[in-house]
């Protein structure tokens, strides 16, 4: 358990530097791409060398580090960051017959380029790590942060996740049938009745520690599961709630990672069944699109709602939570096998 203080998110919606999530931007060419800011805090000489994933990751991280003590660690998650530069580098090896290669793509072509660039820019020599376990990369970041703060309760950590749509990952995911063949608007995404979702990307960053004072939210518990059986997932989720939801309290909101993919519906239906009719349901993949670390944007939304932002109508699937939102459960499923359960509450 730890507390979330500052947070930021660069996403396909207007979330940075100010949040106007009631205005919905639709996908273009079946992709929900981030609205990039001007990156005033990144020196131009470094900015020109950054690929999109690095830009949005560093761009989201720097503002929330400003004015705070140096964090004891930087813990990020990504499934795909660096892949575009990595593939460019590999292509160069072939194109130039293993001859002279440029260093830039090599330097930028690793998933840890974001955490390391943040470390370099802020002269931070603390714990610096990138978790990359596809749809559970961000969940492992949360677990890592939880363990770090348990060991060092006064520690302050920058945590977050980044994934972008690159030419290469879009191609492979599309071929794999994970994106819809037809064009859908945000409002149509959940009712299309077809396989696949829309491609998405975002960077979300959080400053976390063990101190309740001034916190935006409290992360009560995080757990994950690898399984393809909805019944197993249901039992697991039920036990997760029994173990972690404070006695006598209810889940006020289920933030569902439902993504319009007909094949995954069974899992989201199961989550709704477990939380029951007393729990309001909201969805966010029509805002973020589908990508492995989308739950980071989900957690950022939870922080906003727990701090009093109204949940926009376009997110509501069932009921609207009463005033005094206390407990939010994020349930996400990645490709029918990776399940994520995050319980977050008011501090």
């Amino acid at each position, binding site marked *: 358990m730890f507390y979330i203080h500052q947070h930021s998110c660069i996403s396909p919606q207007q979330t940075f530097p100010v949040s106007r999530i009631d205005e919905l931007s639709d996908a273009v060419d079946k992709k929900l791409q981030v609205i990039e800011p001007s990156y005033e805090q990144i020196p131009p*000489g470094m900015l*020109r*060398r950054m690929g999109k994933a690095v830009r949005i990751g560093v761009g989201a991280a720097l503002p929330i580090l400003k004015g705070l003590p140096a964090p004891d660690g930087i813990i990020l998650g990504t499934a795909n960051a660096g892949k575009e530069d990595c593939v460019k580098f590999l292509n160069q090896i072939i194109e130039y017959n293993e001859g002279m290669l*440029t*260093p830039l793509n090599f330097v930028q072509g690793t998933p840890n380029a974001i955490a390391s660039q943040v470390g370099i820019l802020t002269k931070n020599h603390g714990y610096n790590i990138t978790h990359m376990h596809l749809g559970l990369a961000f969940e492992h970041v949360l677990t890592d942060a939880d363990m770090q703060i348990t060991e060092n309760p006064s520690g302050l950590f920058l945590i977050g996740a980044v994934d972008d749509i690159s030419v290469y990952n879009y191609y492979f995911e599309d071929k794999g049938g994970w994106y819809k063949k037809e064009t859908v608007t945000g409002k149509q995404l959940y009712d299309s009745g077809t396989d696949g979702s829309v491609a998405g990307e975002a960077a979300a960053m959080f400053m976390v520690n063990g101190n309740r004072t001034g916190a935006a939210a409290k992360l009560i518990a995080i757990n994950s599961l690898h399984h393809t059986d909805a019944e197993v997932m249901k039992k697991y989720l039920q036990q997760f709630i029994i173990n972690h939801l404070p006695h006598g309290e209810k889940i006020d909101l289920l933030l569902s990672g439902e993504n319009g993919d007909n094949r995954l519906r069974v899992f989201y239906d199961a989550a709704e069944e477990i939380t029951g009719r007393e729990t309001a349901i909201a969805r966010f993949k029509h805002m973020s699109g589908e990508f492995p670390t989308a739950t980071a944007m989900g957690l950022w939304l939870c922080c906003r709602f727990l701090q009093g932002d109204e949940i926009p109508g376009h997110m509501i699937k069932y009921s609207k939570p009463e005033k005094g939102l206390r407990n939010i459960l994020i349930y996400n499923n990645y490709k029918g096998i990776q399940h994520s359960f995050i319980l977050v509450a008011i501090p």
Partner: protein
Amino acid sequence: MDTATLKLQLKQQIVEFLNLLNVKPEDIKDDEPLFGEGLGLDSIDSIELIVLLNREYGIVIEDPKEGRKILVNVNTMVDYIEKHRTK
């Protein structure tokens, strides 16, 4: 290719290879220093420029001291390209 055309082509390649944001090829002066003052390039850029010369003009620079004399400005680069290009 005459020298003026080669200079313009090289400036376009420098902007493209180094991803120089907000710099147009015509903004780069022929005698403007590429490193430090002037265009403000750094050591990673110098490697990118050596790769550029290799790929686009077939020039191999193996001695770093030689590179320092060539990568001074557009004029010195073009002078070297005209004398040593193999493609």
